[in-house]
């Protein structure tokens, strides 16, 4: 059976502005969505797999999705939906068409700068591992990948994911190949139409972002305003840069909890 690699993309029409309606001519996919498709196409070539693009998008997106798939995708699942849906609901609908995929590739942002939570819900729904902010593949094994992940301040880390997995890539990871003229004129991707189901009435509970409680901090001491600013910003204190701690996993976890508690993030 031919393996299938899934790709999720989000189509964003131009935002309506004052006095003007949204205009499909200015609609696009993000660079990271395009990179996700390119990576999927490259892996499909290595594995003799098929690429399936799945998208929850309005009818107006159809020609753009077809044009995107002309780059080499084998299947397009267009789940028609006109309004806004929750990330959990979108992920649930996407998952219906991705259950036979060992790997699913997503962009790590959409042009409307949404919450970025669909891949996480998708991973949860499919029971798959998830990795975010991927900028490269450092090693390929049978059922796993070693992925290069971007961290803050220019740092990188390597994470290993086992199939099935959901990967969100950055736009810099790859540039989508240009579709050939032949496939642009005569799209070959098999198009599967679907429509968005009504959201489940099952509540997932209330979610809210974590915000540490406010703490009372002593007013800075100092004779002059400058002194007080220095005190408030610790400008005169010896600078404490990041520290490298080598500990066993259990001790490392304990250390992190202690530091977070010390800094006020945990009570």
């Amino acid at each position, binding site marked *: 059976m031919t393996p299938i690699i899934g790709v999720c993309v989000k189509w964003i029409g131009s935002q309506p502005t004052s006095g003007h309606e949204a205009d499909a001519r200015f609609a696009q996919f993000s660079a990271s969505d395009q990179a996700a498709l390119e990576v999927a196409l490259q892996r499909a070539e290595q594995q003799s797999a098929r690429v399936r693009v799945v998208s929850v998008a309005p009818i107006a997106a159809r020609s753009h999705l077809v044009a995107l798939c002309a780059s080499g995708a084998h299947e397009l699942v267009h789940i028609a939906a006109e309004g806004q849906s929750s990330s959990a609901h979108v992920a649930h609908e996407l998952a219906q068409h991705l259950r036979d995929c060992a790997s699913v590739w997503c962009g790590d942002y959409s042009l409307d700068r949404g919450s970025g939570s669909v891949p996480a819900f998708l991973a949860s729904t499919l029971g798959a591992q998830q990795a975010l902010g991927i900028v490269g593949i450092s090693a390929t094994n049978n059922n796993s990948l070693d992925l290069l992940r971007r961290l803050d301040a220019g740092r990188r880390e390597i994470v290993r994911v086992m199939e099935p997995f959901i990967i969100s890539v950055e736009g810099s990871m790859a540039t989508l190949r240009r579709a050939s*003229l032949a496939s642009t004129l005569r799209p070959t991707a098999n198009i599967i139409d679907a429509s968005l189901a009504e959201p489940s009435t099952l509540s997932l509970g209330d979610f809210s972002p974590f915000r540490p409680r406010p703490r009372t901090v002593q007013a800075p001491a100092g004779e002059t305003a400058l002194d007080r600013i220095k005190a408030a910003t610790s400008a005169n204190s010896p600078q404490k840069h990041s520290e490298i701690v080598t500990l066993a996993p259990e001790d490392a976890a304990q250390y992190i909890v202690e530091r977070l508690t010390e800094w006020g993030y945990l009570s």
Partner: protein
Amino acid sequence: MSDFDVIVVGAGPAGSCAALTIARTGKSVALIERGPFPGSKNMYGGVVYPRILDALIPEWWNEMPVQRWVTRRSTMLLTDTQSLSIDFRSDAWGDAPYNGATAFRPDFDNWLANKAVEAGATLVCSTTVTGLITNANGAVIGIHTDRPDGDLTASVVIACDGVNSFLAKEHGMYPHTDAAHFTLGVKETITLSKEIIDERFAVRGNQGVDIEILGGTSGVNGGGFIYTNLDSLSVGVVLKLPKLAAQSKRPEEIIAGLKSHSAIAPLVEGGTISEYSAHLIPEAGLKMMPTLLDDGLLVAGDAAAMCLAAGIWLEGVNFAMASGMYAAQAACEAIEKGNTSAKGLSLYKKLLEDTFVLRDHRKLRRAPQLVLSDRVQHMYPALITSVVQGMFHVNNPLPKPGLRKILKDERRRLGIRTIDLAKDAITGFRSFG
């Protein structure tokens, strides 16, 4: 067997009219566009005269995306401190079947291209045509594009690839090109509320104004313009390339100079510049026109220099649409007869010769050179405005001078020779008479 009966390169007004005409005959036609959608280049700032569309889209005015219907036309002469306007208004131009309109090309071109698609044309965007495919005899049989596997073949290719056509040049259809044949059009789109525009330009509803300006271009030969859109103005200058290159001011400085003129500043003040663009305009008319057809190839629109720049008449889109339509008719006839050689495509030349496209260019062939000459650009505006000032200036206790004396004095002061004035008058009469 070719991929298509006809390939049209460029989905501007010429290309879309060509594709629409061909698609309606049932022939297969590909319309190849470089931009992500037709009109995306968005550098136009002018008036569209769509009368020619009567033949293609009955009652086009009910659906064409229009900013304003032009009901006022002003011609303005500017010197540094003076201005003289000849202002014409016609209420008839504000009702069907209308005359001219200001339009945004991303809307207008997209609308026209969609008409071609609805008729059966295949529109391919984001694809640049990089060259022509020719057979052993040199006849054009297709195109190369920048896409992988990007060659397409057709019985006829219609090049509507705009000013400075690479395809026509590649095929040797422009025997000589000269920078003096081109002007640089530079435009700012200035956002103002509809209410302010209506008040400043004395219009209501969707009535619009077209102001053509002679002078005000900081000594560079050319002209200026102001067109009213619904809630913005197109303000710009058209500059003769060699003259622009020979001095030190940049185009945006020249527009700034125009906008600061006492006759223009009150019209644009308080506006926000929302766009700035520049584009070459083929302004030499017949003098620069390329060979219009060859075996398997037709050239139309700006690619064929189908732009009329004759002072009081500044038209391009209507010439483009007509030439695209006629090129399509010629291509269809040639395909039906099984002869797409230059001889088989010669109907194109005949249609152009029989209609306004080449007739107007022929009649006005001397006009572009006259309009852009130093005397018309610099001396005559000064002469006319000074004469008018002399007429209306009250200098009591001196009695009013006669018009002939004012004219004689001002002509002498400006150093305009009678023989030059007479020569230009004859040229003008031959062109515009």
